[in-house]
């Protein structure tokens, strides 16, 4: 009887089973309609006229070049922003200096500014009528309507990603570990690579993944500074839009599917890395629960 009663009782924490089930169902449904369905549509449309059409579209020089541009931008922008993010997070969390608050705010600015505004701003800084424009032209350095401009605009938009992931974590970790390492005789670099970095690597990796995804997908800022020159300065997102406006639906979806695949590769890479890292030598995850051992002290 007590068994029966216990079954009928609602859980001590949380809501009744009915509430729980409908909540889960709601989330699954919305997730499927909002996120999963469009993803499926992209691949279905891309392959709607058979694989050969898909392959032919992808093999177009313009599309290939767009893929190259996107990957090249990511390969340049992501490492630089990662280094910037780590440096900024380190400076903010481990040192006291005047202007620290300001720096924290400045790092956040790209989050709140529309990317297109950033693009226009770059136009005025590096453009022909801009601040550095004439000097750059005189030196024959091409920034706008070329890869450097695209990289710069992408970097502006994604500057906060790594720092934002690291700052809360490093704040919570405090300076004790670094002080301990230094008091044991470690140099600044040694402390960073042996103590700081291993303790922030998962947050950093997550920041890198977010940053990479955003760099590859960035449209607004890049569309302003790239000039949309087909086969020269088009990145994949710009190319997708271009094909779509040309009524090349299959082409647009094929290019979009490549972009999606790149994003999926990033996420899979992250999962694999995490898995390997967590499994290596049985090291406990830092966020994992502490296993309290029995006190064996005599």
């Amino acid at each position, binding site marked *: 009887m007590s068994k029966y009663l216990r079954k009928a009782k609602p859980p001590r924490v949380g809501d009744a089973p009915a509430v729980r089930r409908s909540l889960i169902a709601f989330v699954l449904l919305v997730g499927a309609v909002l996120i999963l369905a469009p993803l499926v549509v992209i691949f279905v449309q891309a392959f709607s006229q058979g694989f050969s059409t898909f392959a032919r579209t992808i093999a177009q020089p313009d599309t290939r070049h767009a893929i190259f541009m996107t990957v090249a931008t990511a390969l340049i922008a992501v490492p630089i922003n990662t280094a910037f993010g780590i440096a900024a997070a380190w400076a903010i969390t481990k040192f006291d200096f005047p202007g620290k608050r300001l720096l924290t705010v400045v790092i956040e600015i790209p989050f709140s500014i529309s990317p297109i505004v950033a693009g226009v701003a770059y136009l005025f800084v590096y453009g022909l009528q801009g601040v550095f424009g004439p000097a750059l032209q005189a030196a024959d350095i091409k920034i706008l309507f070329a890869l450097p401009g695209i990289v710069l605009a992408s970097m502006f938009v994604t500057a906060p990603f790594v720092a934002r992931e690291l700052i809360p974590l490093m704040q919570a970790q405090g300076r*004790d*570990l670094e*002080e*301990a*390492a*230094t*008091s*044991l*005789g*470690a*140099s600044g670099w*040694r402390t960073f690579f*042996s*103590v700081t970095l*291993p*303790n922030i690597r998962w947050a950093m990796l997550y920041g890198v993944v977010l940053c990479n995804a955003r760099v590859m997908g960035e449209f607004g800022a890049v569309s302003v500074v790239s000039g949309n020159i087909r086969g020269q300065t088009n990145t994949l997102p710009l190319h997708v839009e271009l094909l779509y406006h040309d009524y090349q639906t299959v082409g647009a979806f094929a290019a979009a599917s490549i972009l999606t695949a790149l994003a999926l590769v990033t996420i899979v890479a992250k999962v694999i890395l995490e898995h390997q890292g967590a499994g290596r030598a049985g*090291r*406990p995850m*830092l966020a*994992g629960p*502490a*296993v*309290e*051992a*029995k*006190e*064996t*002290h*005599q």
Partner: protein
Amino acid sequence: MKITLDTVVKTFDTFRAVHGVSLEIESGELIALLGPSGSGKTTILRMVAGLEYADSGSILFGDKDATDIPVRDRGVGFVFQHYALFPHMTVAENIAFGMKVSKRKRSREEIATRVTELLALVRLEGLGDRFPTQISGGQRQRVALARALAVDPRVLLLDEPFGALDANVRRDLRRWLREIHDQLGITTLFVTHDQEEALDLADRVVILEQGRIVQEGTPEEVCRRPNSPFVTKFLGDAHRLVGPVTSGSARVAGGTVAVPSLPDGQAEIFVRPADLSWGEGDIPAEVTRVIDRPDGRRVVVRLEDGTTLELDMPPETRIEKGDRQTLRVRRAHAFPLA
């Protein structure tokens, strides 16, 4: 290594944490810096370590001015309050870290041998492969100590070393730290807010209040001859009585207390629970509560003027709430009131 602090000052923003502290620590001594939070004790420790720079004054290691030597070159072993063990390294790797990063190159075998030695010293044989999250608080404390000792420091500095541990582990570790100190003879400075810990462990206790040294001496000296009301109260349970003194006797709460060394005038008198006798003397009192403890009975009494005192009695004493008797103050620390 003898350590000398000469009028060391440290200010954080506008807060003066340490006011001109001068202190000499003899080679091989075990010193406790004792004070309430905010008394500047940790700041002093961190300045000796080189984790903070002094604004003025100097810190000497032996005869050498160490004020501007950065922490990594100072040769100090620092044990942090929360141990600061590297969570991604095993116990053995934590202990080996200082030797690996040292400017003095050691072979892999040399390091391994030393780690085994240290694990034995801190009685953690066989736990070298565990991670810090897999051992108990007391064990982490000992790993932190082994890690600090691994680099053969000239000075050992400990910041609230037992603060985060429970009472029994704390007492054991205290005795054990004393043994290690006697065995290694390394100059040791530790910070605590726990007077029992300081008196139990240290050769000499330095008591701080608001960034100044108010008294220093052996545990016996500071316990028997506290030089101020602050030190008297801080070192242990003490109740305060106030009254006028005439020819070596103070009138308090309807009775008298003998204060032979005090001049005439107002005085404050501190009495500890063990300094009072029930059923003697001439201070009328009424029992308001009896608290039983394993080693005796703590009796709370109220005096005529409303002051509350506590006294300790043997466990077999028969006494209960409402009993009235007189009290005698057998011993007291008295200070003239300015």
